[in-house]
């Protein structure tokens, strides 16, 4: 018979080996492939690919989508989390479920819904025709699709934290004569800043990487309505693999920076403000769904 100590050491080893093998094969290997493929044509080809005018235009559009999406969804996230956590009212759980709804809608269907909404045959169709505006297959469509898929991220990060913090500090501030804005900026914001930053990071990551919704709404007009992920698709389908991977390596770099920032914010959340401990392991909002 084996001693129980032997069995527990053996099972420990088996678990660790499987984990290491699984993580290296499934997570680390894809990263290595991106790097090796993108430098497959040498450094010069790599630099040519990432400085190509089409790449820069795609980068610009991606940047624009992020710049417009971020402030709107940050504002929404803060206001929605405030409304859901600082007051009691009926239908609260329904509202909370509604905020999560964009997570549950497949991106392609989200894109389709927005076409029905904004297209020529949509609600505003006649209005748009009157002013000769075409929203779908143009830049605004990409921005609105990005807006749709990233709605829940900031709110999802703030709600559990603000729920835990309660309203006592805000009530104290208001009863001492602070205005609502003062209360928010001097009392609430310092308490939620790291969670807010994490929500911002998730929003940025997802808005840069969104593919499905943007793909069906963009019309794939090269140099006009193509974001970085769509540009990768075009290059890949043209068998221009080196360039596709070179552009991918840029997005991979941003993804890794996101992960580092995430670790930093969690560390800050758990080490700073000892009064309000945040559970690290709540399922994070999903930047890529």
């Amino acid at each position, binding site marked *: 018979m084996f001693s129980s100590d032997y069995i527990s050491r053996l099972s*420990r080893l088996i*678990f*660790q080996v*499987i*984990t*290491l093998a*699984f*993580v290296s*094969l499934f997570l680390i290997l*894809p990263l290595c*492939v991106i790097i090796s493929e993108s430098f497959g044509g040498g450094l010069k080809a790599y630099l040519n690919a990432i400085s190509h005018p089409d790449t820069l235009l795609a980068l610009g559009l991606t940047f624009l989508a992020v710049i417009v999406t971020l402030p709107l969804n940050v504002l929404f996230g803060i*206001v*929605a989390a*405030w*409304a859901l956590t*600082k*007051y*009691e009212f009926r239908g609260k759980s329904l*509202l909370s479920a509604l905020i999560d709804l*964009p997570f*549950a*809608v497949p*991106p*392609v*269907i989200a894109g*389709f*819904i927005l076409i*029905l*909404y904004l297209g020529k045959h949509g*609600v505003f169709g006649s209005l748009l025709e009157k002013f000769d505006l075409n929203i779908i297959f143009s830049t605004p469509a990409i921005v609105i699709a990005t807006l*749709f898929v990233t*709605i829940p991220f900031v709110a999802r990060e703030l709600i559990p934290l603000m729920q835990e913090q*309660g*309203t006592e500090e805000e*009530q104290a501030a*208001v009863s001492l004569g602070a205005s*609502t804005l003062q209360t928010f900026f001097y009392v609430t914001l310092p308490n939620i800043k790291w969670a807010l930053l994490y929500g911002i990071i998730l929003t940025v990551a997802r808005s*840069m*990487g969104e593919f*499905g919704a943007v*793909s069906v709404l963009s019309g794939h007009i090269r140099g006009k309505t193509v974001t970085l992920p769509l540009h*990768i698709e075009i290059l890949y389908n043209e068998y221009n*693999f080196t360039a*596709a991977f070179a552009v*991918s390596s840029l*997005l*991979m770099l941003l*993804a890794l920076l*996101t992960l*580092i920032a*995430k670790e930093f914010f969690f560390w800050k959340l758990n080490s700073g403000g000892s009064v309000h401990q945040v*559970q690290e*392991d*709540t*399922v*994070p909002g*999903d*930047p*890529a*769904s």
Partner: protein
Amino acid sequence: MKKTGSQNHFLPGFGLSLGFTLVYLSLLVLVPLSLLSFRALSLDGTLYRDIFQDPRTLAAFKLTFASSFIAAGLNLIFGFIVAWTLVRFPFPGCSFIDALIDLPFALPTAVSGIALTSLYVRSGMVGRYLDIFGIQVAFAPLGVVVALSFISLPFVIRSLQPALKDIEREYEEAAISLGASPISVFFAVIFPAIRPALLTGFSLAFARALGEYGSVVFISGNMPMKTEIISLLIAGRMEQFDYDGATALAAVTLLASFMILLSIHLIQWHYSRKIQPRS
């Protein structure tokens, strides 16, 4: 959690914040979604009949739901092993692995798609070894499963980690000292404690996999009847401006996935009623 009770609307700004939230959500989410449902309800019934009679559509439905289910199931097994190792058997470099778990969330799906494809094609780094055994991953249904497992990997692990941390080891030790085998300890002590977390992780992974588009279009090869997923069919209808067909497909897909998620929630609720909160 604190309830403010009688001091309910003591803080100013209730109307404004709730109003803004509702208007924003209505404009961006509710109105567009209800448009789809109105359109879906007013469609001719034959369109729905066609969906269930067209072999190509049926094949896409089968592939999407089956591969999402398999991917979420695989994540359940490997997710448990990885989460267990990270919580119970930490080793040097563990925190690096822990940080890396979220990579599929952070990496744009198009990037994941082309990276996985080049790994698993016949000449790829992994594919060439699988090819020896006659296993084809890229441009085959198996590729869809691989892509879906990759993008939904973090859900199970991230749901399991806090649950595993919460398990009190005394129960396991008691069971072992009473002579229980490791397998019976798992099923009698550990599994009941992590069942809610497993269900949550599974349903999140499944829901995410059902809607995935970016990574699958690269690795699957998009062959009709063989490796075509529903999202691709919907995108195809839209490209042909067949909005009625796209509406019917989208409505059926949304309904099916909502119903599956609802039934998982009901199972969850069933168990949470049976097990009263420990306090």
